[in-house]
């Protein structure tokens, strides 16, 4: 499903001139520019996650990049420029542009991408800051961003905590896989990896586990120390469900550090474009017999904001592993 937004082909016609700076007030209607960010199908439920990603290496048109830069707040621009080198600077800028444009889509284009403001929770996890003066609308949107050097993804969920992690399948670690696992993973996960004799397969399983654990920690939003990797296990069960459980012997009831490592989390793991693994994690507080039996609904789009969006889930580009 393609949206040909602006009905222009790249290279054939000049892009629209960058938008005039808009007041940075959340809730103020953005007007005409944001008609070019079509509203996606809404998030149907708390169990649905939408992921929008872009590939920085494909975005090299200067006027396009300038247009994205205009969306950033002054401090975001400053942070992007502080990165080491033009490539990292571009990625940092695109990451913020992706976030802002994605969020805007879920407000029926009522909120200008430039208008969003952000705050950090006490552990440093970014969240949307809605003005509390009663004048603006609010949407219960939660987001999380993940970077690899070749892809930046933004996950969106409604009314529930979300974490996302993307990694290249072939990512080579400097350290030996089992050493890393022994240092950071649980004993059961180390055993699982140790039984894999083929080193490529072992490396892939490591990356899968890594992205799952990362997605959980990011959803939890307490930072790496808030949920040390060796205190919880992600098990790929035979029926392809991912179960998260506290690592035995590491987490006893008396250990208050593990209190919030709850098991009310839902995961999805997918292969993306045959080059990446993507793990998504959301909190799931539903109770009852359906808990765990209804999979997390995942929709994925590749985007070039304001230019083109392509739904890739439901095609070969997204292969659900769980």
């Amino acid at each position, binding site marked *: 499903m393609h949206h040909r937004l602006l009905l222009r082909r790249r290279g054939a016609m000049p892009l629209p001139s960058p938008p005039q700076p808009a007041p940075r007030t959340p809730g103020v209607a953005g007007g005409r520019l944001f008609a070019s960010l079509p509203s996606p199908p809404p998030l149907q439920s708390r169990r649905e996650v939408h992921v929008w990603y872009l590939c920085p290496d494909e975005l090299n048109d200067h006027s396009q990049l300038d247009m994205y830069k205009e969306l950033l707040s002054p401090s975001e621009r400053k942070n992007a420029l502080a990165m*080491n080198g033009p490539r990292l600077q571009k990625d940092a800028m695109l990451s913020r542009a992706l976030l802002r444009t994605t969020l805007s889509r879920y407000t029926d284009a009522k909120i200008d991408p430039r208008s969003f403001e952000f705050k950090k929770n006490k*552990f440093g*996890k970014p969240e949307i800051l809605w003005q509390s003066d009663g004048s603006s609308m609010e949407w219960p949107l939660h987001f999380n961003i993940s970077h690899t050097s070749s892809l930046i993804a933004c996950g969106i969920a409604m009314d529930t905590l979300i974490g996302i992690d993307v990694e290249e399948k072939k990512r080579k670690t*400097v*350290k030996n896989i089992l050493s890393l696992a022994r240092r950071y993973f649980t004993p059961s996960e180390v055993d699982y990896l140790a039984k894999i004799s083929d080193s490529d397969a072992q490396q892939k399983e490591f990356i899968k586990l890594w992205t799952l654990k990362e997605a959980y920690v990011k959803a939890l939003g307490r930072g*790496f120390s808030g949920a040390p990797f060796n205190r919880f296990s992600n098990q790929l069960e035979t029926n392809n469900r991912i179960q998260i459980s506290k690592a035995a012997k590491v987490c006893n009831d008396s250990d208050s550090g593990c209190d919030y490592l709850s098991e009310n989390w839902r995961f999805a793991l997918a292969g993306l474009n045959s080059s990446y693994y993507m793990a998504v994690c959301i909190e799931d507080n539903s109770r009852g017999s359906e808990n765990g039996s209804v999979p997390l609904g995942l929709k994925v789009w590749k985007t070039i904001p304001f230019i083109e969006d392509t739904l890739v889930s439901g095609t070969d580009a997204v292969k659900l592993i769980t």
Partner: protein
Amino acid sequence: MAHSLAAAASFSPPAARRRPPSQVTNAISSRGLVSFNSQRMSFVSIRSRPSQLRFKICCSAKKETVDKVCMIVKSQLALPDGTTVTGESKFSELGADSLDTVEIVMGLEEEFNITVDETSAQDIATVQDAANLIEKLVLEKAA
């Protein structure tokens, strides 16, 4: 994927946590043992009754330690030749993601024969922070 080592993540640590590397906090108890590193007056070690008076030390690590950290970081991140990495370099700005971060921490643990717990690792924003923590841990181990 990025997190940990403070701002190596999609979020960076609260600003209040950053400590200027040159700050030295001295506290002496009546039963203190004080030792000095003659090189740059960089290290004051204090031992007092563990259960009560325990003071946090923030001070500049030796240049040698900082250099070793820079070397480990450069090799982990495969930074292009000529990339400057100094004590002030922030891990997040060097493009370290979370997997890089844990590998760097493991590299530091191996090099200095220490164990870095996750809470301490999370406070590290710069190379200098890492070097300071390493020296603190080395000292605690030796004591």
